[in-house]
């Protein structure tokens, strides 16, 4: 099996690198090979940031990919940059709160989620990154949801442990959206 590659992109500070780390941790806990490759240009809060997570049963050759199997985008610049690169048959999760444009990829499964609204309902607008991750996991079944929730618990410890419930609630809200799309496609 070749690797499944996921590009997760947004403004710096929106937490896509963190969501990517949680996805990588969840896959690793399933005994899979993973790599997490961030963009590390002169990024700053408000600038663009992205991460490529590769997941595979076999050792991962290139951590860098041109045509990912999935794309999670928090903002328009990220959709414009990476949208055309997704492999046909791939999954694109779009944050409808900020991206009003359709990816125009009839050959992909597109999931639109109101990431900020769902995160706010879950208890904190800043958990929008986990709504996005939930939508992807729901639509793709890439890893079991329990593995992601376990990775969230492992990631937020000590003083940050208080964020676990809201992050998991946000993840589940996204998961439900993603599953609906998977069921209808």
């Amino acid at each position, binding site marked *: 099996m070749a690797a499944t590659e996921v590009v997760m992109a947004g403004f710096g500070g929106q937490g896509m690198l963190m969501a990517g780390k949680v996805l990588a941790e969840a896959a690793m806990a399933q005994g899979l090979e*993973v790599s*997490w*490759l961030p963009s*590390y240009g002169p990024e700053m809060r408000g600038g663009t940031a992205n991460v490529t997570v590769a997941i595979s049963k076999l050792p991962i*050759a290139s951590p*860098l990919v041109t045509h990912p199997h999935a794309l999670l985008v928090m903002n328009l610049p990220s959709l414009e940059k990476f949208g055309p690169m997704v492999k046909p048959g791939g999954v694109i999760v779009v944050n409808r709160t900020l991206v009003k444009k359709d990816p125009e990829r009839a050959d992909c499964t597109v999931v639109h989620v109101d990431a900020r609204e769902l995160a706010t309902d879950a208890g904190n607008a800043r958990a929008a990154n986990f709504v996005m991750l939930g939508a992807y996991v729901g639509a793709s079944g890439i890893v079991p949801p329990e593995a992601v929730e376990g990775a969230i618990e492992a990631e937020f410890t000590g003083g940050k442990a208080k964020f676990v419930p809201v992050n998991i609630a946000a993840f589940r809200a996204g998961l439900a959206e993603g599953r609906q799309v998977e069921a209808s496609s």
Partner: protein
Amino acid sequence: MTKVLMKGNEALGEAAIRAGCVHFFGYPITPQTEVPEYLVKRLPEVGGVFLQAESEVASINMIYGAAGAGVKCLTSSSSPGISLMAEGLSYIAACELPCVVINIMRAGPGLGGILPAQSDYSQATRGHGHGDYELIVLAPASVQEAVDLMLLAFELAERYRNPVMVCADGMIGQMMEPVEFPTEGRGAPLQENDWALTGAEGRERRIVNSLYLTPEINFAQNKKLKAKYEEVARNEQRWEIYGGDGEPNDLLVVAFGTMARICKSAIDDLQHEGLKVSLFRPITLNPFPYAACKEAMDALSPNARVLNVEMSMGQLVYDVKLAAEGSRPIEFYGTAGGIVPSPDEVAARVRELVRGKAEVG
């Protein structure tokens, strides 16, 4: 031991501690700053010394002192910072002191940029300071290999009393991968020896010095160093061959570090198209595995091409040409400035070469 997901830079720092190194002197620079960031937290926990120097020139001279005092020591930097260490490295090699230097390469020349590059290959294997000296240079292609090679680096530094450089690019420094540390806790310190400056009370004094004004004595020291580098070349060459299934192949790719991994993906894709392509990856950049590289070329089908791919304008390519001994032309594909060739771009270049050959033949 369970695997943990770690950034390359942090894993390098932890590996140093596992190797028994608890003395770090360094100065921040992107994309390696997570090495000192990690060690500044970890070293006090193991009773170690973390010192942020005022510059890379100071860092390497602190390493000179610490190594002379007989402790395992580490410094870390990225390309422009390594250039500043050139003088110190020459002195440390001249005095035959063990130490490990990490270079997380970024784009150059000059201040260049902070994105990944492999354009310090020549500096690492040929250049840096003045005089007839060499570094042992190890080039990991994954976070796990970065850890394994750090442990090896401290071993080789002590065995040969020579600076060892672990040479990776910004991508390996910044990416996270699962990693397993083969040793628990903290490894052994440097063994008892007859050269470290540990206080001369009750014994003959020792001198660490590289000034030999008598030409014959200087020449003798140079011959001693040369004999050591030859011994290293005999014993320590490491490489990997990937793909090809042992059959005569259509093309051989030569690449190291991150670039080699990208080439592996290209090779996998090309295999589905029926193209037989293999990869030769030097793991020790110095000593370079010339004989093994030549052997991989000799195993190719008669008109097969050799393609060297690197994230530079062409540096490793000179060693590949030396390995070929004029037996065949070496093609080159490279990028610089922080542009990393994708598997698709490498595959396209390979197709072009194989097809080109078919048209000619």
